[in-house]
């Protein structure tokens, strides 16, 4: 093949994706690349371009009502829908990014094929490429389906959410009736300093959220381990039965047990009535007013301990027995083996679980929402109550107040807190160089 022909092919490869591959015998790959290019063009022409055009303003024509003379009714004339422009604008941007990536891959593949040709090698055939997918590139096979799910239903929606924090999307700017638009960092300013009521509420709720997360995680973790050790102790009979008692409470769906406990502990609930009947108290104990925070922590303990018990039991049994054996041969006593083998091993295996639990507790929506709904309400708080976590506050802003801008600003803040914490801790404890230690 002449030098000039190679140049033509390389040039063509820039305009028509897959040309470089196809011309050098990788026909199937070339067709796939070309198909990708065609579908991208179709997507942009029929869907993406319109939304991208309005992305900067998020719509200009507001929905209006006009009198229809012939039908004698008020007709709504559709305006722009800011939300759809934002969402599908992001979608188009994402698809474009993906396309650019593919384009770069295409050029790289073209060069590789060219190089192979110059060196007199045959570029890998389609079949060879496919076979390498089952071995060296196996991660591509396994990650494709998960990645599609994530991109469409997690990444895209989350970018959308992040964008909302920089708009004025709230009750008074609701599509399709009204438009909303970009406002920059105004929402963050409000929550941090320019609106004292909001910022004070934010600080108080943040404080309680952290207290709650630390306490709830620690109590459940150590409680669960203690329970697992107790049941596993030599000399305890009917281990299976005891374990089952606690496991039952896991299997009952949380909304059932939580709603039930709420009825049980209510001011005029069963527990209070019983205690009064037995003459132990005169006045009903206001679990959800005077002791709301203690109550939710306790109920969370009730919910969480069996989980940890179950997981740590599995781990305790999983510790390789030869570790213990060699320790015993070296003369280590039970306490020393516990400290030097059981604890580090347990920590190594449960560190990710522990971090997940902590993060889960910061976002522990169910327990708070189903049990107290964030109450007792307080006048010092901006549309929130004393047991509200950031996440339930956020939820109330979306569902009850339709204040999406505040909610997504909160979402970003929660994300930054949790993200910083878990990246740090995961790389310190749960991953890093340690991951091979026990392999």
């Amino acid at each position, binding site marked *: 093949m002449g030098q000039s022909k190679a140049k033509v092919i390389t040039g063509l490869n820039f305009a028509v994706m897959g040309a470089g591959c196809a011309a050098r015998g990788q026909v199937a790959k070339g067709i796939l690349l070309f198909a990708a290019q065609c579908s991208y063009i179709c997507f942009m022409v029929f869907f993406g371009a319109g939304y991208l055009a309005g992305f900067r303003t998020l719509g200009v024509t507001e929905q209006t009502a006009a009198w229809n003379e012939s039908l004698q009714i008020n007709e709504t004339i559709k305006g722009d829908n800011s939300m759809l422009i934002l969402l599908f604008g992001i979608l188009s941007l994402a698809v474009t990014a993906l396309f650019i990536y593919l384009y770069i891959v295409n050029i790289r593949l073209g060069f590789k094929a060219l190089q192979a040709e110059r060196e007199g090698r045959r570029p890998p055939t389609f079949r060879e490429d496919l076979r390498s997918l089952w071995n060296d590139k196996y991660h591509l096979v*396994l990650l494709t389906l998960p990645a599609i799910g994530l991109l469409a*239903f997690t990444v895209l*929606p989350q970018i959308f959410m992040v964008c909302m924090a920089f708009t004025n999307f709230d009750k008074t700017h609701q599509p399709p009736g009204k438009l909303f638009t970009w406002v920059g960092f105004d929402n963050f300013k409000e929550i941090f300093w320019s609106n004292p009521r909001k910022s004070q509420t934010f600080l108080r709720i943040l404080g309680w959220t952290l207290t709650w997360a630390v306490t709830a995680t620690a109590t459940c973790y150590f409680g669960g381990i203690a329970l697992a050790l107790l049941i596993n102790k030599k000399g305890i009979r009917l281990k299976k039965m005891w374990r089952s008692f606690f496991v039952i409470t*896991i*299997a*009952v769906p949380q909304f059932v047990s939580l709603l039930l406990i709420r009825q049980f502990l209510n001011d005029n609930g069963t527990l209070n009535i019983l205690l009064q009947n037995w003459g132990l108290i005169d006045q009903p104990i206001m679990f959800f007013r005077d002791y709301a925070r203690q109550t939710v922590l306790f109920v969370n303990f009730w919910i969480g301990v069996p989980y940890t018990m179950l997981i740590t039991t*599995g781990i305790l049994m999983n510790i390789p027995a030869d570790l213990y054996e060699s320790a015993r041969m070296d003369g280590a006593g039970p306490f020393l083996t516990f400290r030097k083998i059981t604890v580090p091993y347990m920590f190594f295996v449960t560190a990710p679980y522990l971090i997940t639990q902590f993060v889960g507790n910061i976002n522990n929506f169910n327990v708070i929402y189903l049990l107290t709904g964030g109450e007792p309400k307080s006048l010092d708080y901006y549309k929130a109550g004393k047991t509200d976590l950031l*996440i339930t506050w956020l939820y109330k802003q979306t569902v009850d107040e339709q204040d999406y801008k505040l909610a997504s600003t909160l979402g970003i803040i929660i994300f930054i807190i949790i993200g910083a914490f878990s990246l740090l801790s995961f790389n310190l404890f749960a991953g890093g160089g340690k991951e091979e230690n026990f392999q």
Partner: protein
Amino acid sequence: MKSQGFYRFRKTAANVLCHVFLGVLSAVWLIPIAWLILNSLREERGAYTSYVIPKGFTLQNYVNLFTNTKTYNFPQWFLNTFIVAVLSCLITTLIVLMVSFVFSRLRFPSRRKLMNILLVLGMFPGFMSMVAVYHILKLMNLTQTLTGLVIVYSAGAALVYYIAKGFFDTIPRSVDEAATIDGASKNTIFWRITLPMSRPIVVYTLLTSFMAPWADFIFVSVLMKGKVDKFTVALGLRQMLERETVSEYFTQFCAGSVLVSVPLVILFLLTQKNYVEGITGGSTKG
């Protein structure tokens, strides 16, 4: 020197104490469950009673759930939840195991980076993005359908890879190496070696993902927007506890809850062995 008898006595005493303590704890954990069952059998209506043992026992609450389906179509909800749970649990488990295997056993350039990205993605409060998810599903014509619900429950599964990865990490690498020498591809190692050695974590993932749809009501309520015959049990049963209906339907709510919980409890107890015995007889010794 103290006698052997003293030691034996001390040991027995400690054991007795432990048993008593376990008994008390079990009571604390089981009382609400017992109360649920008693309420589901209660003949008298009303949300609050001033006594624990019902005055009259009846199975009518259970019968009503299946015969009186005009306002609350419990059998339909149950079926919906079951279908969604089975499908989403299969997809979720497959995704979780694939992703954990990739991160635990395969080495490729951007592995660390990807792990961190997934970790970060999991930090966003999930239901915040529900508004966007709703519109994406609407674009695909999948709102108010069970398929849409299955997608919502399983699409993000890759984010919770760490527990399974932690488990895979404890399987010795030498097992993989031996298999590679014998000519096994990565694909073979995944399906034929790692998965069979990881039954506990497979069961764990299956179970947790099977149970999720029975408990969630936020996503269902957003997705179904009042389409009652597509509700799942969680959303449906919760409706019974609305202020207007709670005293009329509280006992039926309890009956429904029992019916939801019993299969889950049985399933859990049956598979408990996998958690506890784990792979003690398996790979680590191999």
